[in-house]
């Protein structure tokens, strides 16, 4: 548990209401990994619907992937309230873009760069938005997939993963991702990653959504569960290899 504290000297507490406030940053309700890949027609993004409160799997219906404008999809892991704040920023951005009504529209690249600026500037003020964001989209036939972290590290790639996904999903994607994946193969690949995360990530729950974005638009699947198998011999007698109370 990382506690992030910066004391600020604001003078006399009697006169200044903010005098003894500190910017303590500590995530409370968090989402776990996001895994996303480019495929033949666009981008696929998978996430589970869990919101953990520390070690408690408290919320089980949180949508962590949202459509942004006409051309983009945003997935977030980390603090859920910060994600909601980011959605409010983007809402305003998209609204103003639409109000121009001039045939120009924000593409995924623009949204990704805007978010990079926001995240980096907050980091510089020692007041980060505690998220790792995944931005995917398609515009004018070109697919785009990128990531921004809470400290403003930003890059694009053919496949990305956040949180535990970095450790568990990335190796699978490196081995098995191809540029011309069909939709079915793409979903299979994502499900493979999500299954590993389900088994091994303590904060993952078995209720996931897969979102797809193509030139036509965004579709977010209904929540569903993955089949799991727990009948391995080793699980039947878990202490077989280490008898005794020690």
């Amino acid at each position, binding site marked *: 548990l990382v506690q992030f504290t910066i004391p600020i000297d604001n003078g006399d507490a009697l006169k200044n209401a903010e005098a003894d406030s500190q910017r303590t940053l500590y995530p409370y309700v968090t989402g776990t990994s996001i895994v996303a890949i480019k495929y033949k027609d666009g981008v696929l993004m998978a996430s589970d619907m869990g919101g953990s409160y520390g070690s408690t799997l408290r919320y089980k219906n949180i949508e962590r992937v949202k459509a942004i404008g006409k051309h983009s999809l945003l997935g977030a892991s980390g603090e859920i309230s910060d994600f909601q704040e980011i959605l409010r920023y983007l809402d305003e951005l998209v609204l103003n873009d639409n109000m*121009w009504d*001039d*045939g*120009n*529209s*924000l*593409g995924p*690249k*623009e949204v990704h*760069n*805007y978010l990079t*600026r926001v995240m980096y500037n907050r980091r510089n003020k020692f007041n980060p938005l505690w998220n790792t964001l995944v931005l995917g989209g398609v515009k004018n036939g070109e697919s785009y997939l990128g990531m921004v972290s809470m400290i403003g590290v930003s890059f694009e790639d053919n496949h990305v993963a956040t949180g535990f996904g970095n450790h568990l999903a990335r190796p699978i994607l490196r081995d098995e991702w191809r540029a011309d994946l069909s939709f079915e193969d793409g979903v299979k690949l994502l499900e493979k990653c999500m299954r590993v995360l389900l088994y091994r990530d303590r904060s993952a729950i078995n209720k996931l959504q897969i979102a797809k974005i193509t030139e036509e638009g965004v579709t977010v699947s209904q929540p569903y569960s993955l089949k799991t198998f727990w009948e391995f011999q080793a699980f039947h007698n878990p202490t077989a290899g280490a008898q005794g109370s020690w």
Partner: protein
Amino acid sequence: MFRNQYDTDVTTWSPTGRLFQVEYAMEAVKQGSAAIGLRSRSHVVLACVNKAQSELSSHQKKIFKVDDHIGVAIAGLTADGRVLSRYMRSEAINHSFTYESPLPVGRLVVHLADKAQVCTQRSWKRPYGVGLLVGGLDESGAHLYYNCPSGNYFEYQAFAIGSRSQAAKTYLERRFESFGDASREDLIKDAILAVRETLQGETLKSSLCTVSVLGVGEPFHFLDQETIQKVIDTFEKVAEDEEGEAGEGDAEAAAAPAEQGGGGAGDQDVAPMEM
């Protein structure tokens, strides 16, 4: 009759519903030396006449690069024009930095127009005394806009502003229907010919004009004197030859769309080019 009573400051209306200060600002644009813009679907050409104050001085810069995909030509108070160009450059680069994407020219033009409007509604300000021809690209292709001191802006296929711009406009009016699909080279030629119109008889030389081009896949840049002179030579030369033969400016269907016209000074009666 009542003009003088209501023209002292910009926040006073006249009884006939006019703001004279704004109109006077538009006059300032007409006094500046000519600037011309034209566009095709994929390119925009901005050209202007280089008039120096005296033989001893150099001419003022009237065309500015705002970004790789936007350029502006000004007529009127060049100092005001410089300030607005700096504003445009700032807007363009801020957008580029935040979104890593070029600012659509249509949006820049609206920002510019709103900025000009402010000066027509503050008693402690005066309108900008400069007209701007803004050429640039956005998602829907190439665009050319004209921004007035009044805060109005208009989109054009081709336009000319400044002194003797009417002659250029007349030429452009005859030719503009072909601009949409014109090649880059033809567009440049038409721009230079339009500049020639504003010179009204003076011999066209590359030192007298500045020409800039931008387009899809071609960032904004100025054409060098050599290139401009080459284009001038293609029609001036034919003019010389034909004058030698026929002695009259006769528009024959020559192989290259050559400009036939009074190459000599003071030939007011010859109608400018029949293409």
